[in-house]
């Protein structure tokens, strides 16, 4: 068993969803129940494979790549099929494995218009493969392929199952991200040529860059290409404008996956690829990344305050929250990057939950216009309290998961890595701390306007407005439990990520 997992574990993990999708191709579209069942079973099986892997994972050496598989793939360019898991990717893989099955459970009675569960669920499965692949890839070509695989299913999800403005939003999402990817690819190629066209392996590249004495200017440029690719995906200010449109138009499931996992591909790219391979350039870029991060925090919050649509507000809040993650990354310290990874997981759970709630509110009220809502606590008390809980989590209340992404990032900004301006980052620290007030402002204001008060006449006697149903409970409970658990026992994540993060910053210390 152990041997099998070592050799095949990750491959099975990544491609099992694709197998499920293939299977579904042969079943007629009108048999929706079978499709739902197959999709669910596939994702649950994938999660079980993940659990098997995690149980074999050696948590005492999280810094090492485990279940490492490295075989030749495209030998012409020395690209390898190199996959492995370490402490940095494990939490994000776990998050993905958790979110996707829950999204499918939620889909049980929430297939968005115009229906067609077959296509919808198949796309989710393809997406699943893409996301998992991105997190396990240890070769940048392989990473790039998976990174791009993710794009298309999401494009179709928004474009076919989205809201009224779906066409514009989906194209914008697709092209904007692709634009970044193109530059990222160029940066990867430049890296390849500059290190002697030997390998695309992340770890080998890191040591080659150190050996080869590549001029700092070149490194900075290459980092810039990656920065655009990853920064658009995060998204960082000012490359964020695709996000509110994509989120607002996407179906609930799309929004949840987008917020919970897809955005993390960008931040993960920074901590996995850009910084370890190009540490010196990272030091040069850090002040700028930090600047955009804190602008994002305040700007995203102001954007939230101006929204009239609940879902768009939550989307904008992602800009602010990812600002904290990027601030943690920009410090280039183990503590800051640990906080950033914690922030990724926390944001995935919390904002994912908020999008779930927005989706369910939309199902009941057929609108998300904040002005028309109100009194959710009267009409659907349990859902209202869950919304209250999630807003508290989202504003970074200590004792819930959000805090451990936010406060440690602020803390880390006090003392960034050597070579990064301390005084500048202390200014960022204060701005980020001020950002917590804004976060409380827009989230509580949202809560007040949607959950408190009494329902408007329009909806007061609407029989469609009911409290939580069974699929919602099943899909949401794990999120809620984990938000509390990680809030009180943050060590669960910090212990896993720490070793790998420290290892990845070894190149910086040189």
């Amino acid at each position, binding site marked *: 068993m152990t041997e099998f997992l070592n050799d095949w574990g990750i491959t099975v993990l990544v491609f099992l969803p694709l197998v499920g999708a293939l299977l579904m191709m042969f079943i007629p579209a009108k048999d929706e129940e079978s499709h739902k069942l197959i999709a669910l079973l596939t994702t649950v099986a994938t999660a079980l494979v993940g659990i098997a892997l995690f149980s074999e994972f050696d948590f005492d050496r999280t810094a090492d790549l485990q279940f490492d598989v490295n075989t030749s793939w495209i030998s012409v360019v020395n690209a390898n099929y190199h996959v492995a898991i370490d402490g940095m990717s494990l939490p994000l893989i776990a998050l993905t494995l958790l979110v996707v099955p829950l999204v499918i459970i939620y889909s049980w009675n929430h297939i968005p218009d115009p229906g067609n569960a077959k296509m919808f669920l198949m796309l989710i499965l393809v997406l699943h493969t893409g996301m998992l692949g991105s997190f396990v890839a240890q070769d940048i070509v392989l990473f790039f392929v998976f990174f791009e695989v993710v794009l298309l299913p999401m494009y*179709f999800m928004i*474009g*076919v199952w989205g809201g009224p403005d779906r*066409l514009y939003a989906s*194209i*914008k999402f697709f*092209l*904007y991200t*692709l*634009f970044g990817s*193109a*530059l990222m690819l*160029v*940066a990867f*190629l*430049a890296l390849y040529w*500059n290190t002697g066209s030997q390998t695309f392996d992340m770890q080998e590249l890191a040591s080659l860059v150190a050996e080869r004495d590549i001029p700092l200017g*070149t490194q900075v*440029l*290459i980092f810039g*290409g990656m920065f655009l690719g990853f920064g658009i995906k995060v998204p960082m200010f000012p490359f964020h*404008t695709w996000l509110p449109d994509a989120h607002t138009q996407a179906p609930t499931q799309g929004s949840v996956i987008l917020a919970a996992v897809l955005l993390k591909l960008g931040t993960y790219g920074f901590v996995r690829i850009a910084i370890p391979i190009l540490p010196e350039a990272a030091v040069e870029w850090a002040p700028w990344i930090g600047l955009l991060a804190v602008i994002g925090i305040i*700007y995203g919050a102001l*954007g939230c*305050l*101006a*929204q009239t649509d609940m879902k768009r507000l939550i989307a904008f809040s992602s800009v602010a929250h990812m600002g904290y993650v990027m601030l943690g990354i920009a410090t*280039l310290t*183990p*503590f800051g990057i*640990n906080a950033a990874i914690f922030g990724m997981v926390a944001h995935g759970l919390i904002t994912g939950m908020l999008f779930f709630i927005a989706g369910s509110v939309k199902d009941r009220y057929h609108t998300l216009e904040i002005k028309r809502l109100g*009194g959710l606590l*009267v009409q659907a008390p349990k859902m209202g309290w869950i919304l209250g809980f999630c807003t508290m989590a989202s504003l970074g*209340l*200590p*004792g819930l998961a959000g*805090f451990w992404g936010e*406060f440690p990032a*602020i*803390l880390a900004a*006090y*003392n960034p*890595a050597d070579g990064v301006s301390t005084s500048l980052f202390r200014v960022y*620290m*204060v701005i980020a*701390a001020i950002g*917590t*007030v804004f976060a409380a*402002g827009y989230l*509580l204001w949202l809560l*007040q306007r949607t959950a408190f*008060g009494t329902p408007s006449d329009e909806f007061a006697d609407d029989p469609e407005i009911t409290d939580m149903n069974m699929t919602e409970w099943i899909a949401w409970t794990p999120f809620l439990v984990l938000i509390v658990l990680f809030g009180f026992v*943050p060590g669960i994540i*910090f*212990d896993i990520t*720490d070793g790998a993060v*420290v290892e990845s*910053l070894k190149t*910086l*210390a040189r």
Partner: protein
Amino acid sequence: MSVFSSATSIFAAAASDESFQPSDWLFENVWIVPAIMLASFVYILLFGKTFPGKDRVHFVGLTAISAALAISLLTAFTWITQYEGEQGDHSAQTSAFVDPSIVTAVDADEEGDKAKDSSRGCLAESNVVGDLRASDDEYALGSLLLNDIGSAELAVDAGEDGKGAGHIKAKPVVRCLEWFSTGSFGGESATGDTLKFHIGTIADGQSIMMLVVVTFISFLVHLYSTEYVKGDRRYVHYYAFLSLFTASMLFMVLSSSTLQLIVGWELVGVCSFGLIGHWWEEKPNSDAALKAFLTNRVGDIGLLVGMIVLFFGAGQTFDIQTINYLAVHGGLSQTTMTVAALCLMTAVMSKSGQFILHTWLPDAMAGPTPVSALIHAATMVVAGVYMIGRLYPVFWFGMSIEGSPINALAFVGALTVVGGGALAFVQNDVKKVLAYSTVSQLGYMVLALGVGAYTAGMFHLFTHAFFKACLFLGAGALSHACHHSFDMKAEMGGLRKRMPVTFATFMIGTLALVGVFPFAGFWSKDEILVGTGGFPSTNANGNYTLLLIMGLIGAAMTAGYMTRVIWLVFFGEYRGHVDPHDPPPVMKYPLIILAGLSVVTGFLNFPADWFGGLGSRFGLKFEQWVEPPRGDTFPVITHGDSNFLLAVIASAVGVASAALVWTYYQKLYAKDPSATEVTEGLRSKNKLAAGGYALLENKYYLDDLYQGGIADPMKGPIARAAYWLNQNVIDEVVNTAGRTSAMLGRFVYRYIDQGAIDGSVNLSGTSASESGGLLRKVQTGRVRNYASLMFGAAALLAAVFILAI
């Protein structure tokens, strides 16, 4: 460990108190108290709705709080017993001479130990506090029991002011577990080092005192609420929140690290939010809840930044005892301490309702009255005061309290005393008067800590909790009787005879608040005034004459506005329309108990030179029990000498003010028995009076400033401007790029592709239309052009890129 080696013990040997290490199972396991309340919360949350008869869910809360109270009282009792026992032993073997050279030698040895030990937080802290003698196994278990340390630290000179002499103080009992650990920061401090974060408890005089206050008031409020909140639309929620609040408050009180303190601090804030907005159907209530939370968040900026500054200043640790030790022993730079103290002060300003961030507190009265008594008078709002006490060395040195005539902290406190007191005069809502009175009294506490009168501040916190809870619950009883109104002018008056028990208890609470001899407030307020050192021959830490005067003005104001309340509520004619009478027993007994305590608690710390032999025997007990040993993790503070003349002056000022207000109402009553206030005449005659009244009525325009100057512009124009920028500038760039690409695409297609090289690129054309066909299902036509040109642009950029490299 450069930080620790710089912290030499030279100063410590110079002037520290003798101390001993109390030890008891209870001190190491006080976490049980919040745990009980947490369990109660979880139980009510999960099973409250299905509890047999949900209007009886208070059984759960009451049982839990009773247990918590019992354990707290037992802990306090054990603490006191051990202390008194130690004094007995001590007097038997008086003045065991300790050779200073031995002390130095032991200290040097300790330094060595510290240097060897690379871990931080609790472990380092136990090194700091005393000699760590825990075996490796014990360490692995995380149980760091600090037994048997005393001798090395047995000090030389116990308190130079003489009053502390002969007492040996109790050291804190700290117990920690590792919470989590992460990689450290780069730089000099650590490479590849691990930062350990601890969670734990400190049992010392201060925390045990607070434990008793919180559980005691909470118990009475639980009891009182069974009647007061009976039949409420959200009875279960109410009790769930009460339990959660008590748990969080105790969690915060017992914190052994500042990180834990932040967690508790915010959790009590969220409970406060939930309880202020308890009746959230009405917008004013949810507005008040939001205001409270957001104002506190503003202060929290200071809390976060201040704690971060201390974290790095103290060599990357959140551990409270380590920070305190370093502050006392010169391990923190003056800048660090000043910056941290100023930042933390803003947190205190919001949480403990100090000027100018106090504005949320009166609005918080929108919550149920028992909650106001518990959270917004007796416990949560003193969290800021408590935090100052917890990190007292940082404030002591950071604010340069010793020997100074003024500092920011003390001034904010004094300003709050006067500013809050003035506002209490113009309120018609009895709860609002009490709220502003709370603001004013919190000002006294902060003033006390700001001038170095640590014990006086803590003592006022202690006595205030009882008499203010008494007054708030009394106000609840009034409202219960008077048609759920708090309006003194419209619904009350002449209630003296109709509600005798309420009157008696309210009167006692008032006397205590005003500071009439021998009620509780008299003693604590007197100590604060003495502590300012502004009065001749009080020999306190500094020379805060101005603040003494402000404190006296505050005393006069307190007497004035409370006399007004007493008159309007209990004297004159009854102006309401119902038949008010005393509340039922479950509400009455808490009032009586609290009134009783408002009489006696002051004697816990009466001056040692009063009442002859009684004073030297039983005086200053509170100080001895609560104040930590000086010189170790607590600064060497001086206690002022009590002054009979000052006490007389303070009392006279209060009596005069009360008499003035009383005469005014007497005259008014003689003219018109139903009149409640006639200041129109004065205001129309005197412009200054009119202006002053308007200023007070509008609460110094601070609300308007915050709402109109900050909140509204943020929500309105600024947010809209940012969003406009987003849509019309940043996003427009993206859209324009897309449109231009598409246009360029059409141009290229029409003139170059079709015109010039048609045919030669058939192959690529086919593939393009194939992929386009796929996309056309969603978006006809535009996509291909869009996509091809985006790729074109990317390729162009790539080319530039490659050339550049």
